[in-house]
């Protein structure tokens, strides 16, 4: 792998080619990337382009996400100020670059579900284009190493899937930011400064999920990140998020990542699981092993691996606060008996379940219902995994949590069905995938009974806890805003500015929606959440300009 150097605020940083800026900076011990309007420092939080807290200025261009931008030799990277300068020498891009694509099947997302769908649709003879936001293919579960090396069986399995998808004849484009989804369907995206305009016959949405955080005082501090972010740092870029690490929340991902980081050489100071130990619920544990013996076995092996490395795994501990402490962090946990304990570390990783990335589906009008068991919306689908909107399919975690094996099976079903709908093949031969899917779903149901992803009620948090990371709105301000402007989330947004920043309410939105449901006693529905809006992700004005030039006279 090539060695490169770039500068951060003028100082040289050595990195390996293919590393993300975020990984390279963290490896160099830099974790503060941007300064908020309120003067607070922020760094990598989500690691997958959702939170917008890793923004940096790259070669004079402001607000680039360090986690989604590859480090390039000679780059000049700077801390992002909240008010970047306008360039008065700027010119309108004179030759806007744009590509218009009209595939039979457009797959959005290159993870387990998207790649499986790509292969299936292509094998059925459909012309397939697959767009993925990340620089490294494979999505959350199968994410690959930037240097092509293989860590373990999971990555090897992913490598095969990526290779099969690539050699299938589908066009797979990475580093694509999808920002527009309109009826038609018309999908607009930005890819390396060029506009992509896609008018597909069918769409398979496979956008996955992002980590649900634990909203507590200090969750915005640099060094606090989602478990998914830590995993991306390690699996894709062989970068440890810190030397001494705390992992907390609930769910199997925490155990897996703690073990991976320990094997990678980090000291895991604590793994804190909110739910009581599985041994206290032998029946639930047994149900898991009946429905998914292999996966249950994998879970047990992870626990043994952690024990063997003397990593303390404690159940019944909830994160209460994170503070800065002598250049590092100190995390305080509350035990079920009310007592507290404090652990020092230089990185705190958190995951308390997942939120589906369902923005594109909601924008296109796909019907959703709220699933109280996991606390998020689920997309309604037919047997062929078509949503309520004809020609729009949805697979994997963006529909509602399901896990990678289920996403693969769903991808194959939707891929074949979308191909058939666009005139390729008969969509038959899905029986074994349907059976597998039923098995995976039973396992998932049993699995989540062992964990506790119930979010902390906002009104139990200290008033000065930041709720909206982008606009720096506190829990107290939100509650006060609600008291004056009862009603729905849109009213609360206008009254307090929660959700008005660049992450578009991805973290504060679900939390505030739950708050309002609690206060009003009304059941959560699709309309309880922020109304879906374009752009799906922030998009540069120049990219919109290029798309407009290419589309002019077309609408």
């Amino acid at each position, binding site marked *: 792998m090539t060695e490169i150097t770039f500068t951060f605020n003028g100082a040289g940083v050595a990195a390996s080619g293919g590393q993300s800026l975020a990984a390279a900076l963290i490896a160099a011990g830099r974790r503060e990337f941007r300064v908020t*309007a309120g003067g607070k420092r922020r760094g990598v939080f989500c690691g997958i382009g959702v939170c917008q807290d890793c923004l940096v200025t790259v070669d004079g*261009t*402001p*607000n680039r996400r360090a986690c989604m931008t590859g480090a390039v030799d000679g780059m000049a990277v700077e801390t992002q100020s*909240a*008010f*970047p*300068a*306008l*360039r*008065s020498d*700027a*010119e*309108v*891009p004179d030759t806007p670059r744009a590509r218009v694509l009209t595939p039979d099947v457009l797959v959005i997302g290159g993870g387990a579900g998207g790649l499986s769908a790509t292969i299936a649709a292509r094998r059925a003879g459909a012309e397939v284009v697959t767009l993925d936001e990340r620089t490294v293919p494979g999505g959350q579960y199968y994410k690959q190493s930037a240097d092509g090396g293989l860590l373990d069986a999971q990555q090897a399995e992913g490598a095969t899937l990526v290779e099969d998808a690539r050699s299938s004849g589908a066009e797979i484009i990475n580093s694509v930011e999808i920002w*527009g989804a*309109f009826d038609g369907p*018309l999908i*607009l995206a930005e890819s390396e400064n060029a506009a992509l305009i896609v008018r597909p016959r069918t769409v398979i949405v496979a956008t996955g999920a992002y980590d649900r955080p634990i909203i507590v005082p200090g969750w915005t501090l640099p060094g606090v990140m989602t478990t998914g972010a830590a995993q991306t740092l390690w699996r894709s870029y062989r970068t440890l998020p810190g030397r001494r690490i705390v992992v907390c929340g609930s769910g199997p991902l925490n155990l897996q990542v703690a073990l991976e980081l320990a094997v990678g050489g980090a000291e895991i100071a604590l793994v804190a699981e909110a739910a009581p130990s599985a041994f206290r619920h032998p029946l639930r544990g047994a149900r898991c092993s009946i429905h998914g013996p292999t996966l249950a076995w994998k879970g047990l092996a992870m626990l043994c691996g952690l024990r063997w490395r003397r990593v303390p795994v404690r159940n019944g501990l909830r994160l209460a606060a994170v503070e800065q402490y002598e250049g590092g962090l100190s995390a305080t946990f509350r035990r079920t008996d009310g007592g507290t304990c404090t652990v020092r570390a230089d990185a705190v990783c958190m995951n308390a379940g997942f939120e589906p990335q369902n923005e594109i589906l909601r924008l296109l009008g796909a019907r959703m219902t709220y699933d109280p068991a996991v606390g998020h919306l689920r997309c309604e689908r037919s047997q062929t995994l078509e949503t309520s909107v004809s020609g729009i399919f949805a697979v994997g975690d963006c529909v509602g949590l399901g896990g990678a094996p289920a996403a693969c099976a769903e991808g194959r079903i939707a891929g074949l069905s979308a191909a058939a709908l666009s005139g390729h093949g008969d969509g038959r031969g899905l029986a074994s995938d349907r059976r597998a899917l039923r098995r995976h779903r039973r396992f998932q149901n049993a699995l989540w009974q062992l964990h506790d992803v119930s979010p902390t009620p906002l009104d139990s948090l200290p008033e000065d806890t930041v709720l909206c990371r982008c606009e720096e709105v506190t829990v107290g301000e939100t509650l006060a805003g609600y008291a*004056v*402007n009862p*009603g729905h989330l849109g*009213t609360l947004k*206008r*009254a307090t*500015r929660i959700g*008005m*920043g*660049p992450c*578009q309410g991805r973290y504060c939105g679900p939390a505030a929606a739950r708050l309002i449901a609690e206060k009003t006693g009304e059941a959560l529905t699709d309309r309880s959440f922020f*109304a879906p*809006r*374009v*752009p799906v992700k*922030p*998009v*540069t*004005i*120049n990219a*919109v*300009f290029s*798309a*407009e*030039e290419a*589309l002019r006279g077309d*609408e």
Partner: protein
Amino acid sequence: MTSDLLVIGGGIVGQIAALELAGTGARVTLVDAAHNAGSTTNAGSLHVQMQSRFIRLYPEHAPNLERALPYYKQAAECWDTLEAGLGPMHLVRKGGLMLAESSGQMAFLEEKSRREEAKGLDVALLDRAELDRIAPWIGPWIVGAELCRDEGSLNPLLVNRLLAKACADLGVICISDRIDGLTVTADRVSARGLQGRYRASEAVVAAAWGSGALVRALGVDIPTAPEPLHMNITEACEQKIDHLVQHAERSLTLKQFGTGQIVIGGGWSAHDHGVDTVPGVRAGSLLGNVALAARLAPAIGTLRIIRTWAGMNTTADGTSIVGRLPGAERVIMAVPGDAGYTLAPLVAQMAASIVLGRDPPADPAPCSPARFAA
């Protein structure tokens, strides 16, 4: 429910009217459908000069618009007083620029500014060199502009918050309900809502697009029409754009809020799903509106659009509708003309003074709803 005075519609006009009325000690009830208010979705431009968009889209309204120019100037000044009384609204009145890209457009601005000056507006024509001094971020194609020093902008979210608090402090009773019928008897007005009945001695109708339907049964046909419009906002950048920016020929407004964000709008259309549903964003409007902004101000090209939305504007015949309803004098109309947020304080104060029998701040005669009476 009975009170002294009833205000129907709780947008900017209804709220300011309620404040004015409650300030006299009257018991005021404000009933609002809390739905599709232009006041919660508008762009916060304080318009004074004639907007080219109206002249192009509704040429038949142009003479009305021209006659109304003094109201706009006075309304913009009302905002200064309002901010002084209520608190910071990010109100800036450094003027508005209408940019021209050709000598033809310059000639149009020249003629327009002459007519506006005659109506008392503080306007001037700027050539490129003068423009470069005050707006160094403009694109290379701009040849000149008209500057209207009366114009500016404010942040409606701040205004709405301050007004809601002021109304609560003065004891205005705010109710979420939709009125679907008005009856007027010799001594009172009765409004039938979905959740209840509201009675008062007089009622101010400030229901924007909902106003026409409310009073149709009372015999006056006021053509208030909903007009779904599109808006965009960027992330923040350094404070650099001081003016409200428009284009001499095409639909555009662009300005920088006190938050550092740039707000791009100007009347691009949105999908109309009926007044009961929030309008939807059209791809063509987003693309066209933002691309036009990029051409005029290339310096903002690397900024990102973080949000777009669509809101419900109201159009009638270009002139505000203020005054007692012919044949149903206990009903007082308060519907602003084009650029209604700008006009709101003046329209609300005119309506309130009619109710209270005070001297109105401006002559309401040209705004009388009598023009719609059969």
